[in-house]
Structure formats: structure tokens, C-alpha cells
């Protein structure tokens, strides 16, 4: 038998001036199940709370309704009071007769009637409340960071420095990501390698960081605090433990003409290689598809050359399962393939290159040692045309979004070109100059004013080759005139796009993605580094186009989230979670599809001999956030949500 206590608060005059609290107490005291009722000036005050606690103890109350302010204001206060009096804190409801009654109405009789109804409905609800216990989930205090670009490195270092173990997984042979390909960085023009390499070394030498390069994440199982990640380390055919990185094998490898991915195919590499000189770890890998030994069993010069016998052709891929409590996804981006612009001639004309190619040409460690030489004949270009938004902000051919970094890097390219080729002339076709960021607009102004970058507002309609020149035809929309520029080289500011396998990867690890394949944050504004899967966080350009400062900030933010999660051994969660009734679930999996958090699994019910009886849905309380979307989907009413059960809502509505 329910024994409900109702406590009507005056909130000074805030409630009492508009609601006849005496009438409310009288009306509610006669309601079935109400065992105690009283009113007081301020129930949230210490003596007020004492009154509630005493009433609970003395009357053995089974539930409490405080008719006062919004639950958003004092629910926690009174839950605590209930708990202190030995009543389960979830046996409390707040009837909001202040914000939603006394403060908004002007007729005392109407307001009093409304207050009575609100309170009565919640008395009906609280009769059906259940004792709930906070859910505690153990937390494995080790993080995995997927992707070893600047974002991944930053997140790993931040987490590790705070004293937690980190596994950093990178699929390329070296960490460093796209930032290691970049020559100088805007808006300060410091050399990318110079600022990144120390970070790479710090990561690999950090006692709390285990770097796994040339490794892929294949599967993620489990939930927040308790993930098991299947990682496959690809065979390098070089022993990590013994190799000193002397590079003799690379020198001697006879297969030398393989276009280097790192150099955007502007340079070559060997079959046994490190992607770049500052690679971390400085241990080469053998490209099995290009190696003569793997093709026909001959050669093995590298093995003969190696003085410490670190070449191992027998190596195989190794799979391991790693337990972690949190995952930071920092898988980065790709540069869009611009061949869909037939009119720009990318892929047809050797001297039409992308921004990333230009980075390699400008890089002191690049294929031209930092000299700007055009790919076709190695000549220094006298005129360079840059085409912005080559793919971005183009719903018909490219992508709808703004790639965010291109305005800045194009300005930087024009500057670098001006610094390296003093008599050179740069022309930039642009739609808008978007230079929002600290020091960014000043930077573009410098490109225009000091380095004489010629900005032409308009699109390029056509590009063709004539007499060894690239003729760029476009329009200057500010002058309203067509323009034609003879160029020696054209640089396309191509869009940043998600990794080609981003969608498939997202499905594999269970996070959401947008139409392009950028990973979805839990809330664009308020939870920008979390995904909707609890315990998985985002950093860098895998979420949306980002420059280095943004990627690094987001990485540190993700690390802070991870560290917050790791601050306790147990994760305490509100027990407002859904549960499935095994006996009535028909296994249609509508809830599994509808759940925004992938919190519902398919569970097999077997008899004592292990024979399958049926499959039913099963909510993982570690993942469930308590929205109740599954509850109202379920046709057979087989799911319920603690704290807002079907019985509670039914009683509340029928109590109105």
C-alpha cells in the first residue's frame, strides 16, 4: 500500500501569492494513497528538508511529491533528502507549481485548480515509481587513439601525460599523417616537420604510449569503459625489435622507381622503404606487391645487406585484442580527386597539381628540395594560377561544404612561391576569402600586400594547353570581364574529403556519419567531440574539414573527455535506462534500428542444453542514454524505460 507524502512549498511568496496552498494541501490530503501532507515557507531550506526527512521516517513514506519549483531546479536537492531519510531517491517527484503555475498565471482560483491537478497527477505517478539504483560500470583506464596524425598524436600525448595508458594505432608505416607532408604552416610559416617531429618522437618515447604503426582496427566490441578492439598489425617483414633504422637496405634495394605515396607521386621510393626521412618509428617496411623477392623468390638483397639480420620474409600479420575504456577516433581526411573537373584538366596536364602536391614541391625535404619546379619539365614556373574551391562549395560536381582550410593554404602557397621565385607571378581565382581565425586575415592581407598575390574574384571555366603554356580562362566578376591567364603551373585548392573507407569504418566501430562520410558528433554545439556512442570521441578532420590549430584543440578536448571518464574506477550512470521483456519481445529488431546509441543488441535465449529458443532484443545499460525512442516504437510494448515507465505515464495522464 502506497504511503505518499506531499510537501507543498510556498517558496516565500512566489507560490503562495498565486496558489492557495492551504486548499492544495486539503485537496491532496484526501487523495487515495496520500498518507502525509504539509506546507512550509521554504522546503529547500535546511529546516524544510529536515521536515521532509522526519516525515519520511515517522510515517514510513513510500514516495514523496514536493509541490514546489521545477525539477530542473531542485530535484537533486530532494532526492538527496529522500536518500538521507532512507527512501530510494527515485521515489520522488517534483510538482512544478512555480515556473509552470504561480509565475505564469494571474487568476488565483485557476492557478490553485491547476496546482491541485499537477500535484495529483504526480502523486499517481509516484505511486508507480520503483526503487532504482545508479548503474555502475567498471572502467578500463586505458585509451585507444585511432589515427596517428597530429590530432591523434596530441590526444595520445595529453592522455598519457595525465598518467593513463594509450594505444596509438596508425595504419601507415609511420605516424605523422598529412601534417608531415606539409611544407610550412599558416599563419606563422613555421616549418611543419620542425614542429611536428618532436611531437612524433615524444609520442613514441612516452612510457604510457604504445604506438602501433602499420596496424588496422578491424573490430570494436563492448561499450563505454569496456571496449575490446581487434587490431591487426600488418607484416612489415622487418623486425621492429632489432632494426636500427640505418637505411642500408633502402640504399641497396634495386626496385627504385615506385611512385612515392608520401611525395604524392612526385618522387620515387624503393620496395623496402620508410615513407619519409623523419619517419617514426624509423623502421622500414617491405611493399610486398612490389618486392622482387616476394614476386619470384629472387633478390633478397636487403636481407643480405642487413648487418643485424632484421629482415624476416616469413613474418605474418598479427591480430590482437586490446581492452580499452575509451576510444578517440582521429582518422583524418583525404584530398579529393579532382578528375571530375574535366575543364581543369587534372590528370591530363602534368602541370595541373593539387595543393598537397604544391606542399611537397615547397618542402625542403621534398622531391625538389624545396625548389618550385613544375612536374612536366622541372622548369621554374614564371606564372602560377591557383584555383580555389576546386571541389568545395560545388553541389553539382564536388561537395557542398566549404573545406575551410583552402583559402588559407592558397594564400600561403602564393607567399611561399613569392619567397622562392622572386620574379614569379601568382594569380588566384577565388569565390570568397574565408580567413576567420587568429592571425588569418592578417595573413591573407600580407599575401596580397607584401607578396603581391593577385586575387581574381571568379570561377575558372576552362583550362587548356597551348604552346607549352596552360591557358586559364575565367571571369573576373568584380570587373565583369572575362580573363585569360597564361600559366606555367596551375594549383587546384582541392576539397578535404573523408577517408575513402570512412563510412565502412564508422559502421565497423559503431559511430554515425554524415552524407559525405565525416563522423557525426553527439551534438554539434554542446557535445562536439563526443560521438553518440558513449566512450568514443572524435578529433581532427575525420569529423569535418579542419586546420592544424582546430585539430589540435579538438584532440585536447577529446583527451579531456577521456580523462574525465578515467577519473573514477567505476562509471556511475543515472538508472534511467530501457529494459526489454524477454518473454514478450518478438525480435523484429525495430528498436535495434531506431536506437540512436546502438545500445540494443540481439540476445539469444537458450535452454539448459544450449539449444536456441529465440532471439530477443537486449539493452546494454552502459550505452543506453534513456531517451525512450525504443519504448514507443515497440508494438508489443515489450520495452520500458525506468523512471518513465508505461505504468507511470499512464497513471500520470489518468490522474489529470
Amino acid at each position, binding site marked *: 500500500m502506497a504511503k505518499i507524502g506531499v510537501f507543498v512549498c510556498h517558496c516565500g511568496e512566489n507560490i503562495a501569492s498565486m496558489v492557495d496552498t492551504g486548499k492544495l494541501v486539503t485537496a491532496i490530503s484526501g487523495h487515495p494513497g496520500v498518507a502525509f501532507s504539509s506546507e512550509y515557507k521554504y522546503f529547500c531550506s535546511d529546516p524544510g528538508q529536515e521536515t521532509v526527512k522526519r516525515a519520511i521516517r515517522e510515517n514510513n513514506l513510500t514516495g514523496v511529491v514536493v509541490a514546489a519549483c521545477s525539477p530542473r531546479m531542485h530535484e537533486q536537492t530532494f532526492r538527496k533528502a529522500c536518500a538521507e531519510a532512507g527512501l530510494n531517491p527515485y521515489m520522488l517527484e517534483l510538482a512544478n507549481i512555480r515556473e509552470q503555475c504561480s509565475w505564469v498565471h494571474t487568476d488565483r482560483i485557476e492557478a490553485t485548480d491547476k496546482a491541485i491537478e499537477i500535484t495529483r497527477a504526480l502523486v499517481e505517478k509516484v505511486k508507480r515509481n520503483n526503487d532504482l539504483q545508479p548503474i555502475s560500470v567498471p572502467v578500463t583506464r586505458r585509451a585507444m587513439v585511432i589515427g596517428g596524425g597530429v590530432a591523434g598524436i596530441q590526444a595520445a600525448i595529453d592522455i598519457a601525460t595525465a598518467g593513463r595508458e594509450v594505444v596509438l594505432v596508425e595504419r601507415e608505416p609511420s605516424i605523422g599523417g598529412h601534417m608531415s607532408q606539409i611544407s610550412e604552416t599558416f599563419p606563422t610559416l613555421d616549418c611543419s616537420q620542425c614542429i611536428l617531429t618532436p611531437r612524433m618522437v615524444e609520442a613514441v618515447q612516452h612510457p604510457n604510449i604504445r604506438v602501433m604503426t602499420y596496424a588496422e582496427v578491424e573490430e570494436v566490441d563492448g561499450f563505454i569503459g569496456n571496449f575490446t578492439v581487434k587490431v591487426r598489425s600488418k607484416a612489415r617483414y622487418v623486425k621492429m625489435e632489432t632494426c636500427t633504422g640505418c637505411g642500408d637496405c633502402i640504399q641497396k634495394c634495386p626496385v627504385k622507381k615506385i611512385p612515392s605515396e608520401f611525395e604524392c607521386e612526385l618522387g620515387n621510393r624503393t620496395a623496402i622503404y620508410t615513407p619519409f626521412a623523419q619517419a617514426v618509428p624509423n623502421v622500414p617496411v617491405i611493399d610486398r606487391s612490389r618486392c622482387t623477392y616476394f614476386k619470384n623468390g629472387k633478390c633478397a638483397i636487403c636481407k643480405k645487406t642487413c648487418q643485424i639480420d632484421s629482415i624476416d620474409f616469413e613474418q605474418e600479420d598479427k591480430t590482437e585484442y586490446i581492452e580499452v575504456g575509451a576510444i578517440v577516433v582521429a582518422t583524418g581526411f583525404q584530398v579529393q580527386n579532382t578528375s571530375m573537373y574535366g575543364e581543369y584538366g587534372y590528370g591530363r596536364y602534368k602541370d595541373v597539381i593539387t595543393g598537397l602536391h604544391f606542399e611537397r614541391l615547397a618542402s625542403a625535404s621534398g622531391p625538389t628540395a624545396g625548389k618550385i619546379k613544375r612536374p612536366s619539365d622541372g622548369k621554374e614556373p614564371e606564372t602560377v594560377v591557383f584555383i580555389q574551391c576546386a571541389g568545395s562549395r560545388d553541389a553539382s560536381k564536388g561537395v557542398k561544404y566549404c573545406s575551410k582550410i583552402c583559402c588559407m593554404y592558397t594564400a600561403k602557397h602564393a607567399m611561399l612561391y613569392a619567397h622562392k621565385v622572386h620574379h614569379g607571378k601568382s594569380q588566384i581565382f577565388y569565390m570568397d576569402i574565408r580567413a576567420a581565425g587568429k592571425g588569418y586575415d592578417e595573413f591573407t592581407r600580407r599575401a596580397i600586400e607584401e607578396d603581391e598575390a593577385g586575387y581574381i574574384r571568379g570561377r575558372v571555366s576552362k583550362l587548356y594547353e597551348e604552346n607549352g603554356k596552360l591557358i586559364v580562362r575565367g571571369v573576373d566578376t568584380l570587373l565583369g570581364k572575362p580573363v585569360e591567364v597564361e600559366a606555367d603551373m596551375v594549383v587546384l585548392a582541392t576539397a578535404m574529403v573523408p577517408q575513402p573507407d570512412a563510412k565502412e569504418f564508422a559502421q565497423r566501430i559503431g559511430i554515425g556519419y554524415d552524407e559525405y562520410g565525416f563522423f557525426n558528433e553527439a551534438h554539434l554545439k554542446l557535445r562536439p567531440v563526443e560521438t553518440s556512442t558513449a566512450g568514443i570521441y572524435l578529433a581532427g578532420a575525420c569529423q569535418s574539414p579542419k586546420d592544424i590549430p582546430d585539430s589540435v584543440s579538438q584532440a585536447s578536448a577529446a583527451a579531456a573527455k577521456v580523462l574525465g571518464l578515467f577519473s573514477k574506477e567505476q562509471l556511475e550512470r543515472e538508472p534511467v535506462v530501457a529494459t526489454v521483456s524477454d518473454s*514478450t519481445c*518478438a525480435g*523484429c529488431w525495430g528498436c535495434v*534500428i*531506431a536506437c540512436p546509441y546502438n545500445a540494443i543488441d540481439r540476445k539469444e535465449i537458450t535452454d539448459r542444453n544450449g539449444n536456441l529458443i529465440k532471439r530477443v532484443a537486449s539493452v546494454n545499460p552502459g550505452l543506453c542514454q534513456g531517451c525512450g525512442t525504443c519504448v514507443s516504437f515497440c508494438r508489443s510494448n515489450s520495452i520500458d524505460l525506468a523512471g518513465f515507465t508505461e*505504468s507511470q505515464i499512464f497513471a500520470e495522464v489518468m490522474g489529470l
Partner: protein
Amino acid sequence: MGIQEQYRTDAANLLDSGAVKLVIGYGEGSTPERRRPIFIRSAEEVGRLVLDANCIANLSAYLVPEGLLSDGKSVAVFLKPDGIRSVNILAAEAQLNPEQVVILGFNIDAGLANPLPGRKANEFAPLLASLKSAGLSTDLQREADRLEQMTAVERFEYWKEQFSKCIKCYACRQVCPMCYCRRCIVDVNQPQWVNTSSHTLGNFEWNIIRAYHLAGRCVACGGCDRACPVNIPLRLLNHRMSKEALDTFDHFAGESADQKPVLATFRQDDPETFIL
């Protein structure tokens, strides 16, 4: 050879070869124009199978009883296009594995039953796509339009009269291939969402919630309508839901076995003109 003979032979071959363990088909009914479901387990019995223009029931409902398909063996079933759509939905909702369902497909045209080529549900995809583009029943739409032209008060009176006849026999539920729940919402008594006694309010609630549960799932086989002993035009309610699913969400129930439930999915740009 007529379709009946051909399908009897097909059924016999399927059973003899062990390709299926059971054939669900139509047999003679209590009157010459009635057909009833029969269950054939051996080739000797195929002579009992009848296939003609009177075979209108959607036999897919007989595929869902628990345990029928759990041994992994296959079952053959006579299905019209509506039944094939039902199989797709049941597959999409994990109630059966379409690989275990051998379809003896036919349609009824101008008073004749004609064979439909194909054996597995996915082989009928072009047919179902053409049904989708042909749109929903114009007859039902005409009747729905008639109702929509009434005032809300008149419409309410119309349905009140219809639902007042309901005796809550649940024949509509029993005949429906989509009503496979282990426990129907009407049988939930904690809390008692639907008033179960057969007064008009409870009848209203029951019929509304049933139509809602069929949104994007009804294939318009008309089974409920025929089963109703008091002739409530249930098909109209279902039709209205199908129309909403098709017009608003481009969802044609049972178009394929990997179709997602219309109410468990969404698009960010779903229309919302009615939301203030």
C-alpha cells in the same frame, strides 16, 4: 497444362526432392467459391491443391508460427504479389529467413490465376517495383476520398458507427501476417492502454492502434476486411496509412527484404509542415 496442374506438379517435385518439407496452398472450401488453406506434406496429396481466381487469401500468415522454420528446412507457399510483399516484410523484421521460403507465385487477372516466374522473394523485385510505381488501389482511394471530403464531425460519426459494431473478436489480428507479436498491445494490462471491453471507446482505441501498427507494413491483402464478422472497412484505415508512408516517406511496404521499418528510421529532411 493449366496453372493448377503445373503447380501441383511443382509441389510434388519440391516435396519428392526434399527441397521443401511442406507446401502451404489452397484447397476446396465449404462452398464452391471458397478456398481454405491446406498443408501438404507428401507428393501423394498434391491432388488436393486448388488454384483458381477464388484463391485470394494471403497465406504468408501461416509461415510465422514459432518453430515452423526453425529447423532450417524450406517451405513452399502459394502467394500472390501481396503475399510476396508480406514475406519481404517478415524477412525485414527478422521473423523468417526468405531463403527458406519457396514461392509458388501467381496473380489473378480477369478471373484467371496466372503463374508468376520466380521462386525466392528477391526474384520478384522487378514485379514489386512495378507495383510501387503503379501506386495504391484507386478503388480504396476513391472511398478514402469520400471520407476525407466529410467534415471531421461526420467522419467521426461514420467511424463511431463502424467501430460500435466491433465485438473485439480479434479476427483481424489473427488473419494478419504482420500481427506476429507474442503479446499484442491490446493484451497488455499493466497498464491497460486499450480498453478491452467492446464499448465504442475501446473499439476506437483498438482499431486506431492496430492501423498505426500496420503503418508502412500493410500490403493491402484485405484479409482483415474479409475476416471481420461485422464488416468494418478496416482496409480503408490501412490504406490511409499506406498512402501516408508512400507519399511522405516513399515507403512501399514489402518492396524488398532489406527495407527498414518506416517508423524506426527517419530522414533529417522528412517533411514537417504541420509542426508549429
